[in-house]
């Protein structure tokens, strides 16, 4: 019996196996088709995702721009209102909005008009045809007094350019010479301040302290005082004198709380604690 069973079982199973084998092959073909379609679809989805990523990035970029513009616009309106208030208070023209007169330009030769390149007849010249002297220079009236003024201003400008170019020794000499002329009072404190900056730039912190102290003591109403005090603090900071550095930074914070330097000094005070 057992022997018969052993023979019969495979014979019974064989047809089933054959039938199932045919069915499985067809299913395999179907499965392959489906997999191929899925792969294609997956690639398409990946491409769509990449496009969306790019679009989102562009939109983000645009949003940042719009936000910046909106902020600019809103604060422009706020400052326009403040400027009108200032103009009414001081009787000045409100052409240029807000802010303290920290520009040397405001204090000296006035704001130069924009130079649009023009020929001798006043016609606007296209690019490629510009000739030398297209810029608007500062006022050069013909009397001798103005000429001398320009010469003294030239001493200051030359010294400033020397400083910008890193020729600090020359710059210091130039500013000292300008100060000796005693002219253009509105630039005297600037010149003294730049002497301090030049000394600071070459690492002569002790001498820079002295120079900046002159700014504070001899020009107490000038616009360079907060910066000078801050720089004295920085000189002591570089000299590792924390006590003196803190004292001067504190003087900026306490004496000129609304200045740019006050906020900077606060950061340095945090460093020193």
């Amino acid at each position: 019996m057992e022997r018969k069973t052993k023979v019969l079982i495979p014979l019974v199973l064989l047809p089933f196996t054959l039938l199932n084998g045919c069915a499985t092959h067809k299913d395999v073909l179907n499965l392959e088709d489906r997999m191929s379609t899925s792969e294609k679809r997956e690639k398409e989805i990946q491409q769509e995702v990449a496009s969306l990523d790019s679009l989102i990035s562009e939109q983000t970029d645009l949003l940042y721009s719009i936000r910046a513009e909106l902020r600019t616009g809103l604060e422009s309106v706020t400052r326009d209102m403040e400027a009108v208030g200032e103009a009414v208070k001081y009787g000045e023209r409100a052409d240029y909005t807000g802010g303290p007169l920290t520009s040397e330009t405001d204090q000296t030769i006035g704001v130069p008009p924009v130079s649009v390149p023009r020929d001798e007849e006043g016609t606007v010249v296209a690019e490629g045809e510009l000739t030398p002297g297209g810029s608007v220079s500062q006022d050069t009236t013909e009397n001798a007094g103005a000429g001398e003024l320009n010469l003294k201003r030239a001493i200051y400008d030359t010294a400033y350019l020397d400083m910008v170019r890193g020729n600090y020794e020359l710059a210091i000499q130039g500013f000292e010479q300008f100060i000796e002329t005693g002219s253009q009072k509105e630039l005297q404190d600037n010149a003294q301040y730049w002497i301090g900056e030049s000394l600071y730039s070459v690492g002569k912190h002790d001498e820079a302290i002295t120079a900046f102290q002159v700014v504070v003591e001899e020009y107490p109403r000038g616009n360079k005082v907060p910066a000078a005090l801050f720089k004295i603090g920085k000189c002591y900071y570089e000299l590792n004198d924390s006590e003196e550095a803190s004292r001067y930074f504190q003087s900026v914070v306490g004496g000129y709380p609304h200045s740019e330097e006050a906020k900077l000094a606060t950061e340095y005070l945090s460093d020193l604690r």
Partner: protein
Amino acid sequence: MLIVSCVLAALYFLPGTAAGQEEIKVKIGSSGRGEVRFGVEPFVITAPSDKIEQYRQIAYSILLWDLRFSLRFDVDELDDDLRSRMYTDPSKMRKERSKAWLDKGVDVFVRGEISKEDLEYKIAITLNGPASEARILEKTYLAKRSDFRRVIHQMSNDIIYAMTGEHGIGRTSIAFISKRTGNKELFLADCDGFNEKRLTGNRSINLSPAWSPFGDEIIFTSFRDGNPDLFIFNVLSNSTRKYISYPGINSAASWSPDGKEIALTLSKDGNPEIYIVEFWTGKIRRLTYSKGIDTSPSWSPTGKEITFTSDRAGTPAIYVMSKDGSNVRRLTFVGNYNASPAWSPLGDRIAFVGRSVDEGNTDLYVVDVTSKDVMRISAIGDNVDPCWSPDGYHVAFASNRNGAYDIYTITWDGAKLHRITYSGQNYSPAWSPVMLK
């Protein structure tokens, strides 16, 4: 007016230079033409070979372009008739050519010979003063095809250095952003517009490239990871790494002249402000605290001051401050929009973009840092993103004057224009430093 004077005396020698140099003064004219008359001869082919004529033409055109672009010289060529006759029997024409230069009144002329040896082109040049035929420079160059243009640019640089003591910019590059692939990617081209190649391929938005002062890396903003972060591309290894990623905006990076610090704009503390980060340590310090937007920092050539854009007074204007954030003062009052300042390497000027109230176009302006005089140097289309060449004589910028935005260069006084790109919406040029090797 920008004037550069350099007197060459017998004290100056270059390797391979013959004795008996002449004294020549070189000045920059304000119209962009130098006062030294400089003659350029096509190279004589000493041994005909395949494609050597083509390479001779390339060398001639590069030399002419580089010397004119340097603004140091009034460059002249031989008359067409003489040029064509010298090709047939150059040795007989030598005296005739020298006489032609004398008649033209050139101060200096360059002549040379080109041949092919194995896989390299050999070019031997001499720099001569026609009055005495004394040689100022004598040098030989070897160039494979793949770096032929680079070698000829180096030749131009050597000539400029021999004449002026200053480094030419023929071998500099301009990085820029281009949308030609469909995304804003970072690209690079030679300063004459040749050899354009794509540096990034992240299919995102990439912005505001800036070179390291050593010419080996470019820092730029990218939305690659979803946020505007700062990345650094290494030109030598062609690799990119993320450098700074604070919440919000990380942008407008500018490397200090000594390479130790980077000024940048971050909005992590609220609105966009300017910060300085120490490059190697990552230590960061805030410089501006205004209620407005402060951005686009650009260093003075000494690295002691920074110019930037701020709308703290209501409308965007150009300001200057000490590099520690103190002593802020306003520099410009042009129209209602002044932005994107770029400090000239010569220190005396700052280029910026301005928009006048009545005209509406954006134009390039240059402000003198001492007199505060302002000069407009563009007049067609919208012109944005100024950056200076490393010699301070040219400004690269993006303009839509011919339709789409492309990169152009213009001389410091707006006199001479040159187009760098011709397709694909191109912005934000950044001029590489001079590479001395």
